[in-house]
């Protein structure tokens, strides 16, 4: 078996550092996912409005998010705001802002799709029972929307977790950055470490995303 240089992970505090890096990545992504889900549900409801102004605005927002690479957004928020507004945002906060901005748009679009897929008769039969539009949303439309959203949003959530690796570009030390540091530090005595360490990073991402897919599968089964 070729030398994968896995022994570098056991040196000093390397394993703890790499797990700490994973913690940072997960903290950023889970916080952003949470914000995206709640804001995305509101955004999705807004997107179904027939008002032309809200329509145009939400459409623009979605297009901007889709067209702009996340990295550009990160640079814009992290470096741009410092120059223009004199804000000194930390790398992590900038990351959460950018990922929430992105997630809210994408989630909003998923919510919009799920909302308009609820048949109009569901609204009518609820209205015929004397429910107000607030009650119809709360008891009939949202529960069904959430069920339809699960498989779609899991895809988005895992994508968000994976994309957090970009934040190393604005100086946040997350799992991939730690991995690079470890590899750099051991370049001379363990030149093969790149493979082993990146493999470990791959496995860590897998371990982070796998339970989410499992949970989604279980929920889908229960709510079928």
């Amino acid at each position: 078996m070729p030398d994968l240089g896995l022994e570098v992970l056991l040196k000093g505090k390397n394993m703890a550092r790499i797990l700490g890096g994973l913690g940072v990545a997960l903290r950023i992504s889970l916080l952003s996912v949470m914000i995206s889900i709640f804001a995305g549900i509101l955004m999705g409801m807004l997107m179904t409005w027939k008002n032309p102004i809200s329509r145009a605005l939400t459409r623009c927002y979605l297009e901007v998010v889709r067209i702009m690479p996340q990295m550009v957004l990160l640079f814009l928020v992290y470096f741009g705001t410092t120059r223009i507004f004199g804000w000194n945002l930390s790398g992590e906060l900038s990351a959460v802002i950018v990922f929430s901005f992105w997630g809210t748009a994408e989630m909003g679009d998923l919510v919009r799709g799920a909302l308009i897929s609820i048949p109009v008769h569901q609204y009518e039969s609820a209205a015929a029972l004397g429910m107000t539009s607030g009650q119809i949303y709360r008891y009939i439309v949202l529960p069904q929307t959430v069920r339809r959203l699960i498989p779609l949003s899991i895809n988005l959530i895992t994508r968000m977790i994976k994309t957090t690796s970009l934040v190393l570009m604005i100086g946040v030390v997350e799992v991939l950055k730690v991995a690079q540091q470890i590899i750099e530090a051991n370049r001379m005595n363990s030149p093969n470490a790149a493979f082993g360490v990146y493999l470990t990073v791959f496995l860590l991402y897998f371990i982070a995303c796998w339970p989410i897919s499992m949970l989604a599968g279980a929920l889908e089964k229960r709510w079928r």
Partner: protein
Amino acid sequence: MSDPVLEIKHLVKRFGDQTVLKDITLTVEEGEVIVVVGPSGCGKSTLLRCINALEEIQGGEIRLKGAEVSKTSSNLAKIRQRIGMVFQSYELFPHLSVLDNIILAPTKVQKRSKEEAKEEALALLSRVGLREKADSFPRQLSGGQKQRVAIVRALCMHPEILLFDEVTAALDPEMVREVLDVILGLADQGKTMIIVTHEMQFARAVADRVIFLEEGVIKEEGSPDQFFEEPKTERAKEFLKTFTFERKRSRV
């Protein structure tokens, strides 16, 4: 005689420049069962949807025991609680169990206690023979069972009038019977109902009064025996003929 339950005066309903209901006037007394028949597209379903303010109306008025029913009235949700409606496609809520489908509106809208609503729901389910399905989900039921649940869901709100919109049109023949039996039972209990149906035998059995609607106008109205035996208008005669079959081909 007490006041009528429902009064419709000079109702006009238009979709764009097409007038679907032209000057409909109809009074429904307490305990009366009205059956509305007519060819497809004559406005029967639209009439029911107007009575429940699911459609905006362009003229005339609809009053439920004196209270105006209109899509713009502020207490619309309150008034709709007093009108039960059952749809052709059942429209149970797929994410809720049968029992929860039934008690959702009584508990959340009428703020009744969960225990009391549940007790009534189970009693009503027993009456339509579905007591053991209380914890099932709509997708596990047959069409006829779903429709009976939908009827129970409407009943549990204690409506003053029930509207049935072609409730058997989507069902297999054997299932039609079980649903119609439930509605006949309700008629025997003296519930006030307006029923839109294509089942002429059933219409004759259940109706106190038959309304024949064509092109948005009430063309004829009368007792079931009179309407089905000797309809007054040519159009009604023709319509009823479509439900009988004759063989014209002679045997050679």
